[in-house]
């Protein structure tokens, strides 16, 4: 167990990667063999993520993993200075928290896709891409090196776009695949340009090394601007969000859940760069208010555009976009006051980070439920479906739980994190809390619309309950939603507070873990 825990950071990337490339081979032996193989890979990965998280939370400081070196990680130059040159994974509480979220969503999505692909062929390559996407997301969250972050960013871009355009017989999925790939590639290249600028300016690629050297010079600011915009675009902030409804809407239902984890990993990268890499070297007031401006636009535009959508998956996609705004709001408020350090800044961070976990569970649940709805009614148009609640009681219940939780109805989990965000952003400026609350109410209206259109009404013919293989992952996520809602204090103290504090006040510990005292 100890060896597994020590090597967990790299195994979390290596095991899904190996599984991804082995899946087409195993798939030769039949569908059950492939399902068992992929299922065991993802279960092992999930268990590893839990093990690593327990270890890191107990450790209290970042866990550093050196790829390829047991004898320290500095190469002495002739002048005697040591420069960290190896690729290092640095897992602090925030990275472990994100790994937990990814593991939960990947488990649910993969399990769901087993029965989703029962009636179709081609599932081998689909599961291979899904494992590749999972490996890339874990890599983005665990790495401590900027160029490695870029590489995993591109891996997730390629895997995600492969999954979005997987069903090549559908016209819209190809259009969505091209658009999303073009935008992801553009943001990836600009992130690489920023990494190159930082390397040229400071001579290293390691995040802790750069953090100890970065200042407010012109080159640093150009790099910051490129990284901020590139990663905000990948996360889905308005007005850079227009790829998100295409991506989430055209991907197969279980993929959309994992794509949300992808966006959250980019959001994590943004937070890591803003809090740990740049710290307080560039004016945190300006950076915080840039994030808050993004957040307000995202919240408002996301939820209002969701109200007028006709396609159920695009509607849930727009609400996913709007929830990213809540995370940006919470963390933006925290960043804006992170020099003066009032207590409400810490509360805002807790709210924003907790909302990442809540949103992943709720949106995952909603996308899986929408997959079930589309399968039962045969259409994605909200104007053509109806009456599914009569025979699909379980699906209705799970959809209701996910929708109410996301809209922030007590006692579910969305309310807990939104409560923290409202109360702390109110202290910074009342307008923020007002817009956030109004958007929550409008989100409830959006989900009433979906519920009314899809589930209420006279029953159609020939509708049966969703297969159990699709119901169980929904049940797992619904149980997670309810538990997170009923015991928020427990989860905040154990999971969210260490993660948020690692960003809020853990910059020096992060740097010290690699560069020493």
């Amino acid at each position, binding site marked *: 167990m100890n060896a597994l825990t020590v090597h967990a950071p790299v195994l979390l990337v290596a095991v899904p990667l190996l599984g991804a490339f082995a899946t087409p081979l195993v798939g030769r032996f039949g569908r059950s063999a492939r399902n068992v193989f992929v299922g065991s890979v993802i279960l092992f990965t999930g268990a590893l993520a839990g093990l690593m998280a327990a270890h890191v939370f107990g450790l209290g400081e970042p866990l550093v993993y050196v790829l390829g070196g047991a004898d320290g990680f500095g190469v002495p130059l002739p002048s005697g200075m040591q420069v960290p040159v190896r690729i290092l994974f640095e897992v602090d509480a925030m990275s472990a928290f994100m790994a937990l979220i990814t593991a939960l969503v990947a488990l649910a999505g993969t399990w769901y896709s087993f029965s989703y692909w029962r009636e179709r062929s081609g599932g081998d390559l689909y599961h291979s891409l899904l494992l590749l996407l999972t490996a890339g997301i874990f890599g983005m969250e665990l790495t401590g090196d900027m160029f490695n972050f870029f590489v995993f960013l591109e891996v997730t871009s390629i895997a995600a776009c492969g999954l979005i355009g997987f069903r090549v017989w559908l016209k819209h999925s190809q259009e969505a695949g091209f658009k999303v790939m*073009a935008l992801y590639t553009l943001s990836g290249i600009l992130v690489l340009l920023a990494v190159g600028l930082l390397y040229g300016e400071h001579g290293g690629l390691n995040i802790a090394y750069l953090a100890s050297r970065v200042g407010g010079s012109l080159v640093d600011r150009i790099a910051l601007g*490129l990284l901020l*915009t590139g990663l905000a675009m990948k996360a889905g902030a308005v007005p850079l969000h227009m790829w998100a409804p295409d991506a989430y809407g055209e991907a197969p239902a279980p993929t959309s859940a994992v794509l949300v984890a992808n966006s959250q990993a980019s959001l994590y990268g943004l937070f890591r760069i803003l809090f740990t890499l740049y710290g307080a070297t560039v004016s945190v007031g300006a950076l915080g208010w840039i994030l808050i401006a993004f957040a307000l636009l995202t919240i408002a*535009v996301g939820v209002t555009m969701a109200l007028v959508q006709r396609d159920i998956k695009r509607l849930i996609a727009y609400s996913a976009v709007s929830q990213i705004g809540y995370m940006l709001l919470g963390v933006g408020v925290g960043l804006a006051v992170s020099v003066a350090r009032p*207590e409400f800044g810490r*509360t805002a961070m807790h709210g924003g980070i907790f909302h990442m976990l809540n949103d992943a569970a709720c949106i995952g649940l909603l996308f899986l439920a929408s997959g079930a709805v589309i399968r039962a009614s045969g259409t994605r148009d909200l104007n053509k479906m109806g009456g599914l609640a009569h025979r699909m009681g379980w699906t209705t219940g799970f959809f209701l739980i996910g929708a109410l939780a996301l809209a922030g109805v*007590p006692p579910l989990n969305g309310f*807990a994190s939104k409560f923290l965000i409202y109360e702390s952003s109110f202290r910074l400026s009342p307008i923020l809390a007002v817009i956030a609350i109004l958007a929550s109410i409008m989100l409830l209206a959006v989900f009433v619309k979906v519920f009314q*259109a899809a589930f209420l009404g006279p029953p159609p013919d020939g509708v049966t309950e969703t297969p159990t293989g699709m119901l169980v992952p929904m049940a797992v996520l619904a149980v997670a939603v309810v538990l997170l809602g009923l015991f*928020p204090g427990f989860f905040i103290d154990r999971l969210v507070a260490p993660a948020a504090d690692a960003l809020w006040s853990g910059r020096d510990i992060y740097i010290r873990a690699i560069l020493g005292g």
Partner: protein
Amino acid sequence: MNGISSGFGAWNPIAWVLLFAGVFAIAALVRSLGRVDSKRNTGQSKVFLSGNDEPADLRGLHVRGDHLYWGMVEGLAGYYRRVRALHTGVITDYVAWFVGVLGLVFVILALVR
């Protein structure tokens, strides 16, 4: 016990659930004091439509998707007309937004301390 507290207030979901359970208990108590002679699936549970009969085919009555919030969308028609027009769907417009926001962020970062 496991509640969370922000600077202003506190939230304890267990207390909330217990409160609602208490309210439901009172409601169940009141309900049990009512009449016991009403039956389901008889004429007592028929919908009252001002004396008319229920239509044979209920499918036409279902208020679907877009029609549910028609009034609200109409009220925000000006906003929606402009914002929906901005979501053109053309990839080059998406990149134009990206470059625009990038320029704005550069300007802001150049001006602050």
